[in-house]
């Protein structure tokens, strides 16, 4: 079973986590076009490589970002979104 490092709780088995999909930057809903908004809601980039993904550590209720290489299934790093936003 894979291990994943929760930024709060450390290395835990993957069965404790819920995958939350690719992380995407939301366009400004007030200024973006309908096409841009639809692309944000429905389109995902399937190209292999390092992806930013949402993961949720279920027992502790922690959402965080994992940067994962979808070719090798290696998790490059994990961090709280707020840590990233706050610098």
């Amino acid at each position, binding site marked *: 079973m*894979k291990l994943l490092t929760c930024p709060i709780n450390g290395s835990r088995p993957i069965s404790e986590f*819920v995958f939350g999909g690719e992380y995407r930057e939301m366009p400004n809903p007030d200024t973006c076009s*309908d096409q841009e*908004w639809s692309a944000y*809601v429905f389109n995902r980039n399937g190209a292999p490589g390092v992806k930013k993904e949402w993961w*949720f550590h279920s027992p502790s209720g922690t959402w965080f970002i994992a940067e994962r290489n979808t070719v090798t*299934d290696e998790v490059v790093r994990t961090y*709280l979104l707020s840590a990233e936003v706050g610098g």
Partner: protein
Amino acid sequence: MLKRLSPQKGEWINREKLIEFTFEGQAYQGYEGDTITSALWASGEQVLGRSFKYHRPRGVLSFANHDVNIMVTDGIDTNIRADVTQLKAGMQLSVVNTSGGVKQDKKRWLDKISAILPVGFYYKAFYKPKALFPFWENIIRKAAGLGVVNFNYPRQTKYKSNQFTDVLVVGAGLAGITAALCLAKAGVQVVLVDENAQLGGSLNEDFAAKADANDKLQALLTELANYPNLSYITQAYVAGYYADYYLPIITQTGMIRIRAKAVIVATGAFEHPPVFRNNDLPGVMLSTAAQRLMHRYAVKPFDNGLVFTANTQGYRVALDMLKAGVKVAALVDLRALPNTPLADQLKAMGIKIYTGYCVYEAKPSADGFGVSGAIICPYDETNAMPDNTQSFKIDCDGIAMSAGWSPAAALLYQAGTKMRFDAQIQQFVPQQLAKGIFAAGKVNGFYAEALRAQDGERAASEALRYLNIDTPVLSTPLQASGTPSHPYPMVPHPEGKNFIDFDEDIQLKDFANAAQEGFNNIELMKRYTTFGMGPSQGKHANMNAIRVLARICQQPIAKVGSTTARPFYHPTPLGHLAGYGFQPYRTTAMHAWHQQAGAELAQIGVWMRPAYYKQAGISKQEAVTQEVLAVRNAAGLIDVSTLGKIEVHGAQAAEFLERFYTGGFVSQQVGTTRYALALDEAGVMMDDGIVARLAEDVFYLTTSTTNAAMVYREMQRWQQMWQLDITLTNVTGAYAAMNLAGLASTKILEKLVKNTDDIKQLKSGDVCEIKVVDVDARLISVGFVSEVAYEIHVPAKQAMILWSALIEAGKPYQLQPFGTEAQRILRLEMGHALIGHDTDGLTNPFEANVAFALKMQKSFFVGQRSLKIIKKKTANKILVAFALVSNQAKQTPQECNLVIEQDEIAGRVTSIAWSPTLQKIIGLAYVKPNQADMGTYFDIRTDNCDLVQAQVVQTPFIQHSSGAV
């Protein structure tokens, strides 16, 4: 035990303990430590099984857990591998896949007609007529096969345990033990696993007649015992490699799931046979099997054996045979110019060595159950052609074969190792290993004893550095000249029966046939010929198959490649994999009361809830109807503790809810509740509930039972992005809730509060915090199932106090508890749609007719931007309430029945039920927008394809105190 040798140094048997058992109805004896095969071979039995396809007699092949022709049944257990299974007293063994016993197998005629049964025969012969295929299939399946499945097999729960270690070393041969010792010395935790009954690998049997050969192993074993940080497990195999160093170890009785930080794979190599006619006769065996028989079990493999080899291993075995007192009829070496120093030793002992010769065929004994001799002849290595014209016979009663090895690299492959073919040693070896995975010994291409030990040390040092422990960098010197594996040990024969895969009876010519028919890719060839698809999964067959295919296709072996080695490494009984059937569910604080009251429980989401309360003498239908009518005419009480309950605290709590839900909450007054609808970013309805404002900065909200976890999770995710000044608390389990519904409910509640004005003043949609029978309660007036109803939320621990008090206080008013069945009808009568029941994963609020809940002028809410786009488009369906025009419909429509307009699908029914209150069948359905006007008639097609007429009506279906539509 006529073939038992005098005591051998290091033998695995305990001669003090005699074991009695039967095989095919006859009594035998063996010693403790014997396997089934070794005990039988010691007793002179050579025919231990029948082959899978042609029912040819088979004896010992590998003694390494791939003698899959020797599978036996003992009581309820079948497909027991006799070569490695320890003998137990009282075993009553019979051979699988025979009819009439292993010697008199009635299906042996299959061998006689094998010439007309080439690979792919079944596909081609029985392909037409199609109708007859089941007939042929039945016959084929009975003829070919293994043990019979016992459908009365008792349920066995095998233990599962978890273990952690720094380094797992797989394989306890010289390389593995050396590596484990180096690691243990450095102070790390080491677990060493080996599938054999004793540690040591080939140190147990590959002696080449050296007198002190076993001393080295004994010294290593003594040293192993010195390290408390080193533990070992025998008779257990690592079944596969899973991500992040997680490996299941299958022991005799259960499974250990081990999590390591690094893994050293020292799994060794499988010997594979040279391919010549009748290389499967009982008495023809791999050289390592002969060594194992002699040194582990002190059993003579033959009395007068011939050695057929293509490497130095054959010479080592010949020396071992002579030392054990077995005559060596001759040594036949496929190579024209062998460079083997051991040859002189053998010659000095008078053994005749034929170099550049092959065994052209093994001659069966008169009964066909053994070997009477070997026909040998000169061999042209370059063209792989025997010169049959110069053949002659050498008498012998057995043949030890040694042509080469293939690495036991399954775990390495599974751990993502890139392998390369090393032409020098004629073996696939690791080229690039994944992080934290190390290979040592034969699997890494090192065969000489000194090199294997060195390679173990090297691998250990690399593992230590990987674990950030400082150690000097070591390297293993290159393999000395001379390859342990022959590049093409095949001897063609016009009459065939030169087997490559013993599991599936695949012969040399089968490969040529398959290639000729176009199956000339390794994966295609595997599936067409079925090589490597038997129970041993190609352990002795794959390498030869690859060599044959490479030659047929005239491609280098590196290009042909290898098939994929998936878990499990050996067939693993399902009992090891089966779970405990653990299905947890949650119960509410009133669960015991429900059970006592005769509730029929149903699992809803993660909860166990009363569906209805059984009553003596009446049916379920009648009981549910009674519960519905109690609410309508008097009062009812339902446990709604399963609702999701979340508290939002903080200065920006209202702002958070504004963004998360579609409605407005900033303007919400303290002491009121509001309907809350949550969408996803595409504008699809996710969940709904009510939000109660308890204070300026405190909101208490509910979600539907099944979405509780999801809603809380999504709230947490948005909060990560929004970073508002709030705190979210999931109090789903902390609070119990009950819904007191019906016209009499106000009176009942008033009896339980100090000041009845508190209740009287409560308007529909209000919330207050109040003591009800001394329990702190959050009281919400909410009309979900009834015009007049109260949802009372209390700390779960005090819930029973209130529940009992309500039941008691309700008695004069005919208060009745009701379950989810009645609740569904009641909410339908009220015209409420359920998200996830009346909506699906694509439904937007316009279609579900809940646009009233949208505050589109807000600056933002999740899904708002998508709704703006959706709103521009015309909806193609809309949810309406309907009643059937006639109650005497031929068939009552069901949920999911289609709405039909002019033979076209126009929509579907999402909810439908008989309303005991209205005495009508009512429901909700999606219809085309042009059918949605009040009073419109539309047709529903029932399961019987009858069209039933329905009419769009207003909601709620029931009007306050009137009950009329």
